[in-house]
């Protein structure tokens, strides 16, 4: 019973925290320098790891897809399969996961350490709203960086699938590209970017929340990081199902 109560209290706190975050987002202009700094950290620094993951997921999708389609003679549809699965699903999910793993953990660790070392109290005493200074610039950076990262992720995963299809599996290059062009609509790209954006917002809220309410000491910091990654990763997978169902029926 106590556990249920604890979870409910935690959800309530999360709700209030998210509410304050979004109120702060619209209450004052954020410091543009801070926003740019975090956009660089979140966007540019996440890009290499995202590309690496997307490339290998793209190659794998092409390989696995080829053998499945080949069993009933449908290998000419590999381009559509790789394109749709990467643009609609994998790129947004991988972007969300990489953002949770890299900037997400960084945010949780930074904010939790600042909490433990009384730096957040110091901000408040200096009349600086920690939400305005610490959280809003990161949230804006997440909102702008995530859709762009999804685009990069989708491009590199499809490109990697193309190289495997053409140079390893010896499929026709023109057919693969035509397939991608015919089956992957602009709408799919936008939906993927929208999904990535939503995952990023939720990821940012959760990593800030766990950092902000971290328990004292090193154990508190490590718990904040742990909770942030586990919760965001689980959330993305579950939320993705509902989003896909809502968008594609």
């Amino acid at each position, binding site marked *: 019973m106590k556990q249920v109560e604890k979870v409910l209290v935690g959800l309530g706190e999360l709700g209030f925290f998210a509410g304050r975050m979004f109120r702060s987002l619209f209450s004052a202009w954020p410091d543009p320098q801070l926003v740019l700094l975090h956009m660089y950290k979140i966007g540019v620094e996440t890009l290499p790891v995202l590309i690496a993951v997307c490339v290998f997921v793209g190659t794998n999708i092409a390989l696995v897809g080829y053998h499945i389609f080949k069993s009933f003679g449908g290998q000419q549809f590999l381009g559509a399969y790789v394109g749709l699965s990467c643009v609609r699903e994998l790129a947004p999910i991988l972007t969300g996961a990489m953002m949770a793993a890299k900037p997400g953990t960084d945010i949780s660790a930074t904010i939790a*350490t*600042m909490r433990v*070392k*009384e*730096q957040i*109290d*110091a901000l*408040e*005493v*200096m*009349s*600086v*709203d920690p939400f305005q200074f610490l959280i809003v610039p990161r949230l804006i950076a997440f909102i702008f960086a995530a859709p762009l990262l999804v685009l990069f992720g989708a491009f590199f995963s499809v490109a990697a699938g193309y190289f495997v299809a053409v140079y390893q599996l010896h499929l026709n290059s023109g057919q693969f590209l035509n397939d991608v062009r015919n089956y992957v609509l602009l709408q799919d790209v936008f939906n993927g970017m929208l999904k990535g954006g939503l995952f990023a917002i939720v990821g940012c809220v959760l990593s800030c929340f766990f950092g902000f309410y971290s328990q004292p000491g090193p154990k508190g910091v490590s718990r904040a990081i742990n909770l942030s990654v586990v919760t965001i990763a689980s959330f993305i997978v579950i939320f993705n199902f509902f989003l896909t169902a809502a968008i594609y029926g």
Partner: protein
Amino acid sequence: MVEYAVDFKNVHKAFGKQVVLNDVSCRIEKGKTTVIVGPSGTGKSVFLKLLVGLLKPDSGSILVDGRDITQLKKSELFEVRKKFGMLFQDGALFDSLDVAENIAFPLRRHTRLKNKEIMKIVEDKLDQVGLPGIQHKLPSELSGGMRKRVGLARALALDPEIILFDEPNSGLDPVMSDAIDKLIIRTKEHTKSTFIVISHDIPGTFQIADHIIMLYKSQVIAAGTCEEIQNSTHPVLVQFFSRNSDIPIDQNYVTGKLDLRPYVTGELAGEDAD
């Protein structure tokens, strides 16, 4: 007529069942150094956090220059907080900023000064705390004493009316501890500010204090000048300032042995500590 910078009126604060401050009333004179002392866990840090509005009391009022900060909106509270500068226990310097940017932080946030002017103030404040020329060092490259002094320089950056010190001597060797006390005295001579210091350090307390407030079991049990406190025969004060753990300070707990139960605060005070 005596003016008061801070006035606590019947302030009560509890965390769950743990009462940390129980009906605390005290006044802190403007332009003086007041040291708040007391055993660990008697609510000294909570007292400071209530004073700057980081915590809200369950009841009572806290007047800063006559304004009850417990009734203020966030934006009004932020305005009142500009009167304060605070030195945190470990300095609370921002790890990602160098010393200069740490000290410049409140100036960049609350003034429209040019970078050159800000850097001049940074240099002056560093000189004031005896650390010239360390602008480009990172907090991780500083010793505990240096971090505290940089923290003090940052607290002084906006020339606040009230400067708060949360255990400025904690974790320092006796010589550095004395250096910090002398720095507080020197800083006091340069400013007209009100200094409020939380301390455990007995010699340092008598060196820097104009007034002393003693918190014990969540309440103010004594307040007065250094002389009045030193001459007091109150058993708690006698034990605390003689640093003697063998004297039973509370007749309810006479055991003839080392007895730390009275140091448990609030409602738990009446129960066995173990």
